[in-house]
């Protein structure tokens, strides 16, 4: 791998190259050696390539961050450990069901937000999957005889179906169903952004609003296509198709670089039950100050490793790291250090921890030399 990497400009370009080759090969297989490439889909095709390259570059950069790297290192290590297999599978299944499929934690932030996010998320994933499937020719339909359609996946004929059957209807209307979900979710989200003033505090137009309106444009133009086709005898069909293609191209190119990029990094949440806290809110490592459990060994080891790798020297006078103490003890240590009180739980560094903001040099008087106290005792007598 190292050898191979050297022949490329960077890690990101190497992975991008591999992804492009795989995509190309999949098109080659899917379209029967390029015999069935639809040139109408050219814009979609190019932007889909940009989408995949963008995602690859961003993911590579993200995995190179020291913190992410550390978590992934432990995840891979745990995946390989035979003894942990049961825990691994449980963690992955639980994260997949609770966090990704049902998105329970968002419903806890509010039912409205939950529904809205769930609709947008699954509308997006569904329509992206169908779009890529069709654009790269991974799947298409073939008319076998007058009443039978066949689904062809990677140029391999699979199930056949009657065009009026429920399954066929679901498949044909997949994009419409996804678009309907998106439309409802988007209207909910935009309404929330307009009505809820608390959101304005952190809202950024280019980050929070742009993707919403962009998705809305994609969804509406896509739905209009169906309306024009089904109800209006194809009125303005080619114009709408062009508009839709343009919006989709912008969307695909934007995806890896904006808010929506949280989608591909979300699965890392599985690393939490897998590597760190196995059962929610059950801690196993004791604080060395107050002896109450506050974390677990692996997590603290990882945090210290990450900080060490980034040249943070937070070691205290007693040889421990702040992260060996629970957050409450850490707060107390900081204050006691500043007030020059000897803390009952541990000794901090001689100098207060520097947070290096240029002007922050905190601290009360340090303890003075023993002679000073001896002097005052003498004076008292």
């Amino acid at each position: 791998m190292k050898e191979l990497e050297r022949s490329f400009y960077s890690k990101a370009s190497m992975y991008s190259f591999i992804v492009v080759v795989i995509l190309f090969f999949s098109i080659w297989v899917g379209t029967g050696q390029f015999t069935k490439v639809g040139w109408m889909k050219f814009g979609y095709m190019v932007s889909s390539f940009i989408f995949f390259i963008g995602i690859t570059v961003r993911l590579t950069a993200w995995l190179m961050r020291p913190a992410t790297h550390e978590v992934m290192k432990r995840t891979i290590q745990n995946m390989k450990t035979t003894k942990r297999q049961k825990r691994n599978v449980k963690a992955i299944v639980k994260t997949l069901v609770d966090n990704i499929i049902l998105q329970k934690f968002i419903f806890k932030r509010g039912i409205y937000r939950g529904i809205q996010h769930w609709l947008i998320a699954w509308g997006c994933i569904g329509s992206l999957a169908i779009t890529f499937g069709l654009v790269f020719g991974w799947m298409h339909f073939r008319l076998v005889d007058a009443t039978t359609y066949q689904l062809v996946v990677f140029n391999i004929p699979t199930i056949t179906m009657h065009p009026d059957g429920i399954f066929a209807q679901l498949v044909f209307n997949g994009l419409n169903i996804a678009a309907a979900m998106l439309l409802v979710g988007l209207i909910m989200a935009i309404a929330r952004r307009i009505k809820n003033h608390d959101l304005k505090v952190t809202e950024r137009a280019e980050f929070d609003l742009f993707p919403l309106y962009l998705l809305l444009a994609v969804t509406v133009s896509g739905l209009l296509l169906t309306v024009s086709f089904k109800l209006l005898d194809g009125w303005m069909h080619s114009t709408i198709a062009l508009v839709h293609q343009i919006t989709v191209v912008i969307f695909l190119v934007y995806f890896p670089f904006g808010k929506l990029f949280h989608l591909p990094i979300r699965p890392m949440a599985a690393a939490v039950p897998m590597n760190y806290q196995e059962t929610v809110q059950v801690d196993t490592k004791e604080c060395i100050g107050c002896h109450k459990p506050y974390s677990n060994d692996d997590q603290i080891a990882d945090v210290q490793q990450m900080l060490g790798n980034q040249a943070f020297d937070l070691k205290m006078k007693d040889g421990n790291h702040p992260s060996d103490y629970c957050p409450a003890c850490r707060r107390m240590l900081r204050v006691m250090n500043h007030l020059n009180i000897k803390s009952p739980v541990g000794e901090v560094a001689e100098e207060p921890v520097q947070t290096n903001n240029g002007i922050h040099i905190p601290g009360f008087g340090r303890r003075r030399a023993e002679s000073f106290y001896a002097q005052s005792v003498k004076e008292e007598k």
Partner: protein
Amino acid sequence: MKKIMYLEFERCIGCRSCQAACRECGGHDAKERNYVEYVDFLESRQTFPMMCMQCKDPACARVCPANAIQITDDGVVLSAMEEKCIGCRNCTFGCPFGIPKFDFEENKMYKCDMCYDRTKHDIAPMCASVCPSDAIRFIDHDEMMELRRKRTQLNLIEGKKPSENNKWQYVPEFFGVYSD
């Protein structure tokens, strides 16, 4: 931002107004992000207020595997971005001062952001604007320097004699973001 936060722990009277004010803030979901705790309950009833230092090189953001903790142009360290935070709690352990809080229900971290929406317009953060004993203040750089100078003199009167090198260690904590 022209002003900075100035904390004097021993002025704290434990009224917890700052926490109540913090809960009132928009987007905080009625959960406070600051702390008022006892210095040493067995010794005295002295309390102290505690907020985020807004570190220049924040350990919390450095240990976040999701890159969820963002720093604004003025150097304010924001709460985790809700869509990115994967709920690992690394930040709560990485922070040397025990500041970030974690919400297990909603699976996200939240922390003091010095009321960024207020302080970026030089308006005092919620906690500083309600503190009745001036334990938390939001003041000009000059005023802070003045206070610190007085403080060192006070220490001198009490018989402590800081040297040129360490005299700033004899004054209370101040932090925050300051840029000319």
